[in-house]
């Protein structure tokens, strides 16, 4: 498979937007794992990143804002043969749909969750999101953000996630490898992807990230990973991975029908 086998159309993101690189990294990861596009389901959120629903030539379910995980879980449960990738922005993943993330971590259905984290609600033109830094001024916080931001990695680790990683859209090769590991992981996998929004985020710019980012060479123990997630450092890589039985039910897609008359007779 070639990366182009998964792609279609021409994205309309702003030139230089981090979303381009994430799309490329995902297509490369799928190609390197040789997954036929017919067996891939992408579930997209609503947002700038979510617009990629139009630019993938796989099966796609474009869900509601904050709601890409539940359909992804439902699909994977009934058809475990599919590779299911759910996508969301930080607004969708950590705001509107944060409850779903918490539970996806627990349930451990093998779905890959790619969060395009640009620290803003971008599609609605730059309001502060749950990951916007303290004291940042945005159109919705003209006097600066006063709330503590969500810490996605610490949240996922504490909620019982079995694969927790951070990627950077500015390093496609590294991100591609992360996505491959996530797809191969037997359980739910979160990758929080730092994605500069070149148009609206003048704080967390490409250069800002470049200065702070460094690579982890291997996953850490749970407590260490949790501590690192809480620190001011900005490493990318797999923070934490454990092998835990994934959620599994027999595939239901071709299941024959049940003889209901026996069940009815029990009410005689």
């Amino acid at each position, binding site marked *: 498979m070639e990366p182009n086998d998964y792609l279609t159309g021409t994205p309309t993101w702003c030139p230089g937007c981090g979303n381009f690189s994430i799309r490329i990294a995902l297509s490369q990861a799928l190609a390197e794992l040789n997954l036929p596009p017919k067996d891939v389901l992408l579930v997209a959120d609503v947002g700038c990143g979510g617009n990629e629903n139009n630019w993938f030539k796989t099966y*796609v379910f474009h*869900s*509601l804002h904050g709601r890409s995980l*539940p*359909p992804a879980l439902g699909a994977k449960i009934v058809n475990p043969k*599919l590779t299911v990738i759910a996508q969301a922005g930080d607004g969708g993943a950590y705001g509107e749909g944060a409850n*779903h993330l918490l539970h996806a971590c627990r349930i451990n259905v093998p779905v890959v969750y790619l969060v395009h984290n640009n620290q803003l609600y971008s599609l609605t033109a730059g309001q502060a999101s749950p990951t916007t830094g303290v004291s940042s001024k945005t159109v919705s916080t003209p006097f600066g953000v006063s709330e503590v931001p969500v810490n996605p990695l610490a949240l996922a680790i504490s909620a019982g996630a079995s694969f927790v990683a951070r990627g950077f859209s500015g390093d496609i090769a590294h991100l591609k490898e992360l996505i491959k590991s996530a797809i191969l992981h037997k359980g739910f996998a979160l990758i929080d992807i730092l994605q500069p929004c070149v148009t609206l985020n003048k704080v967390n710019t490409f250069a800002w990230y470049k200065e702070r980012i460094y690579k982890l060479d291997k996953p850490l123990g749970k407590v260490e990973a949790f501590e690192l997630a809480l620190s001011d450092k900005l490493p990318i890589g797999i923070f934490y991975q454990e092998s835990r039985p994934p959620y599994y039910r027999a595939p239901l897609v071709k*299941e024959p029908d049940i003889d209901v008359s026996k069940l009815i007779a029990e009410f*005689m």
Partner: protein
Amino acid sequence: MRLLCKIAGFAGSGIMSAGEILGRACSRAGLFVFASNDYPSLIRGGHNVFSLVISDAPVYSLFSKVDLLVALNEESIELHKKEFSEEHFVVSGEILDRFAKEFGELSRNMVAVGAVFGLLTLDFNVLSGVINERFAGKPQLDSNLKAAKAGFDSVKPKFEFKAKSKQLFLSGNHALALGAIKAGMKFAAIYPITPINPMLEYLALKSDCGFVVETPEDEISGILMALGASHCGVRSMVATSGAGFSLMVESLALAGITETPIVIFYGQRAGPATGMPTKTEQSDLAFVRSAGHGEFARIVVAPADVEECFSESVRAFQLAEKFQLPVIVLTDKYLNESFQTVSLKSDVKMKRESFASPGSDFKRYAFTADGISPRSVPGQPDGMFDANSDEHDEFGFSCDSPVNRAKMVEKRFVKFGLLKKELPRPVLYGKKNAKTIIISWGSTKGPILSALEKFPDVCFLQIQYLTPFPDISEFIKGKKVIVIENNKTGQLYRFVKEHCLIEPVFFGKFDGYQFTADQIVEVLDGAK
């Protein structure tokens, strides 16, 4: 012979199970039973009643006068004595106390069940068979059997029935669930809520037959998981009440625009908000008919009794798949938790709608004459498409051209044309040429049918499929029209008024209880 028996006492004293056992044993002995429970939103304490109408002819509703009261505590006699019929009989006090002491307090309800069975002049072996099945392998089996026998032996036969052959006895919840299983449902996501909990629990118990039952983190997740499963070609459902459905509404619109089949079982209860969570009402018809932002096609069906719960549950899945839209099966607490002696039938030809054999340039949302486009599912070669919550073109890609938009909206509604031909028509009960016609929907049917026995010049039109709304002009022409509903504002009444340009009379009830047959009689007497 027909009598109303109430089993009453503290919540937590085994009233539900006593009632169910008695109802099943009576049905198995060849009698007809209609039963309904009434309980507060508590696990223990508070007053709990299970009412059974037992008869040798079919019964459809409760009545107001109590012929046989089983008072598991003294307070129950005080609470119910104003309902006593002239020849009433009470099982209480000394007998219950004596045997409860002998076989254990937990067997008090079984002493009572035994006594009632004896009073009804029925065969104890039938009752012991039911108790044996119910408590098979449980430590209380033996004491329950002994308690029931002691109760049975302590009374003299009092009421006599002409028994027919044995029949099924089950609740609306069970019938809905069995319908879903018969329809080949493979995925259910259900967050607990009264009145659909027995449905969740029954499906969960039977899930090893080969379907998945999930308890999601909330109803938003529930319906979306079901949509994800349905996207993969699996027949999927959710079940909820008003509070949960309110959370599902955004996703209902998603099902509408992506044309993803889904069946939503909706058991109404007395709102608004938490309202009276264990009481009944038919007050969400207007809500489900229009819930969801934007305009899209849906089906709303209101089964009216336990048999219809089964038949229309089966049909709901067939319709959802064939027409690729959401189907809401609207019941209420009274119906979900009513038990009836029934035979279950379905006239639906079970058929999986075939999926497309996609070639190159597969158009999932192709414009077709009947509005139904070919469907592919993940895993099918060349069938890749975007099930898009944005307005889309025939491939599913986002598209906001005005021409495409108008055509897509039309396409999603064209289905209604074909659908109207396929849906069952409203059913008329009674004489076609009666001067007065009652119109209603849902579980009000039972009390109306029971009341009509006294009004030969009144007929009754039951509207089962409420969206799309059927043409009912042929039924009502030249008649006085009365609409009866279990709500305050007349949700069907308003619709009939607007739709048929007539001025019907409306009677509503919104005290948390469905009408009894006698209350409908009063309404009709007053409307003369």
